[in-house]
């Protein structure tokens, strides 16, 4: 799978995966790779990776995207084609939701009334579900505004991350007419059954939540219900955009078994939603070739006493590393097959940078890997300790594709 073609050609890249696999970093490096190709790139993120944000000069929350100052990129030696810019925005659900209410409320007074209900205020505080939805909202409005050539959306690390794609249905679950009807006053036309059921529910709600809440809820549902009709139309616009060829979904994972399970979950979830998962990005792995000499080989060339001892102690670590390289390459090969068997484009591994990606330089190094032409299929590594080094102290494996 060639990441370079996505950052050059797509309008939208959605990045999903478990927490702690480097999703935010990957998203930022994809956007920066787009910038380097001369595109106006925007990365929308939910995860406040504060140190990286600081390095890029992005405030923790804001009302709108912030441009990364070109001088910061220059200083870090980033090679940007003319016209390339990088914007970033750490999504604040509150800000986005305000915008939604303003845009869709039937009348300005309605917007004001919605904002005043205690429920709305709580809705802003309790992020579950809302983050995903606001991400979709932001994505759509930026796409509409045509201010960017490439938008990279970093999704939250929860299994619900893609629920925004289900927004019409999900919101429907919350706000559909039958649910609303149990709060609404009853008319003569309601059947005895419905009236009875709704009475039970209302008794339950007011007894458990107190009557003030029940009243709030009724008011909120009434107002939000109207809004919802319009949001439904909007949500289908988001869906259409994400279904089109302009968009690509990438699943990021690490070699950790729990992260791999999540990756499979996301792959299937994307398909369930009627979209196509382009492939996997394997992060934090040793799958990329890059190791050469064995410590045993080096030992012969070294006289320095402490270094000699250090190299001896490195031998078991080299064995461990070889085992990991092998196992990670098997994982990469498996992801490749897994993606292709479901109509995807395969899998690719990004290099494991030594330091955490918390500087522009490190991000740039990662974006170089994104843009680098793929080195072809990786050959299996050979465990170093079990093979005899040749006279030069080298093993002949592992130079492939480096």
């Amino acid at each position, binding site marked *: 799978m060639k990441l370079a073609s996505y950052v050059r050609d797509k309008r939208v890249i959605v990045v999903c995966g478990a*927490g*702690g696999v480097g999703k935010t970093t990957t998203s930022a490096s994809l956007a920066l790779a787009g910038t380097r190709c001369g595109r106006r790139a925007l990365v929308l993120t939910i995860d406040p990776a*504060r*140190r990286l944000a600081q390095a890029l000069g992005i405030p923790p929350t804001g009302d709108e995207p912030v441009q990364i100052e070109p001088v910061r990129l220059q200083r870090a030696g980033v090679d940007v084609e003319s016209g390339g810019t990088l914007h970033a925005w750490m999504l604040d659900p509150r800000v986005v939701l305000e915008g939604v209410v303003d845009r869709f409320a039937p009348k300005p007074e309605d917007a004001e009334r919605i904002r005043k209900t*205690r*429920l709305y*205020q*709580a809705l802003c505080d*309790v992020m*579950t*579900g809302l983050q995903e939805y606001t991400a979709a909202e932001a994505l759509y409005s930026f796409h509409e505004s045509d201010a960017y050539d490439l938008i990279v959306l970093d999704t*939250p*690390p*929860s*299994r619900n991350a893609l629920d925004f794609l289900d927004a019409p249905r*999900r919101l429907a*679950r919350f706000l559909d007419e*039958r*649910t609303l*009807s*149990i709060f609404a006053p009853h008319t003569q036309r309601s059947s005895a059954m419905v009236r009875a*059921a709704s009475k*039970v*529910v209302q*008794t*339950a709600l007011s*007894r*458990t*939540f*107190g009557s003030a*809440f029940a009243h709030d809820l009724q008011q909120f549902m009434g107002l939000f219900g109207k809004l919802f009709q319009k949001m439904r139309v909007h949500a289908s616009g988001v869906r259409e955009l994400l279904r089109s060829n302009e968009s690509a979904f990438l699943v990021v994972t690490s070699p*950790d078994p*729990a992260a791999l399970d*999540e990756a499979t979950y996301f792959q299937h979830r994307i398909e369930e939603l009627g979209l196509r998962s382009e492939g996997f990005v394997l992060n934090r792995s*040793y799958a990329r070739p*890059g*190791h*050469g*000499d*064995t*410590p045993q080989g080096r030992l012969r060339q*070294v006289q320095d006493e*402490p*270094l000699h001892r*250090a190299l001896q*102690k*490195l*031998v*078991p*670590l*080299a064995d*461990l*590393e070889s085992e*990991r390289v092998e196992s990670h390459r098997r994982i990469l090969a498996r992801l490749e097959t897994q993606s292709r068997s479901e109509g995807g484009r395969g899998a690719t591994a990004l290099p494991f940078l*030594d*330091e*955490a990606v*918390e500087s522009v330089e490190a991000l740039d190094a990662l974006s170089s890997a994104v843009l680098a032409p793929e080195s072809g299929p990786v050959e299996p590594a050979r465990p*170093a300790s079990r093979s005899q080094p040749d006279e030069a102290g080298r093993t002949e494996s*592992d130079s492939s594709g480096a």
Partner: protein
Amino acid sequence: MWRRKLVLVTGKGGVGKTTLAAALARRAQAAGARVLAAEVSTDVATASPLMRMLGHPEARSTDPVRLESGLSGVRLVPSAGHRRFLQASLRVKMLVDAAMRSSALNRFLMAAPAFPEVGTLFQLVSLLRENDFDHVIVDLPATGHAIGLAALPQTVLRVVPSGLIGDAIREGLELMTDPDRGHALLVTLPEAMPVSETMELCQTLDGLGIRVQSMVLNRIPTDPFSSEERRALRAHLVEAPDRPLLGAREFSRLERARTAMDRFREEAPSAVSRVFLPDWTADSEPELVAKVEGRLQEIEA
């Protein structure tokens, strides 16, 4: 670490949070206390990692099940909490069944923001009311914002100040924020980003009035190098960057772990105790739990 009525164990996925929760439950059990190991999950259908770690993979109930002498297990699931508060408010089982069958109400409770968490918290509080456990060790969910459950009470109280739920949530909040009765333990790994995130989480919890008792740095790799050897190897690697050396990546991992440990020592608030756990291997999960438990015992002594 476990000597509170309510012990919340939190951290990102894959950091060994569940292992620590299980080991704490074992410690408390060994000390002769009545312990409830509770796992927060979204539904009962999936397997329970915490019960598996405790060697009882079959236990999946949302009511406390006695696993061994002094040790019980339970799963905290939103729907179980919803049922409980309906039971408490309606008092007639038939009505509860009718209400729970009402798909409209069910959908509302699961899809409305925060209601799943309210269900979980309600279940926890009612378990504490109804049973006589000395300690409840809660393994919090790994997904995203660990503060979800912790931040919830204040938000919900603003919206639902009265009624059964309001009362239960207030009770839960009091328990969580009373340092004599409840505290939190944060688990993380010796790498830069996880440590940064844990420091942030610690601040957030502090802001919510929840005391962080310990921060646990888990899976610290064994470092065989003396500082002299380390310097020599570092210099050697810098000298010839174009001639890669097998094992160098593992060496950098050790270096990163060292840096993370230093930061952990320096930056963690002084009131929070720091716990370091090695990167153990074990043949089975209960065996790993036993190793961690042994280490916790040493720390206590």
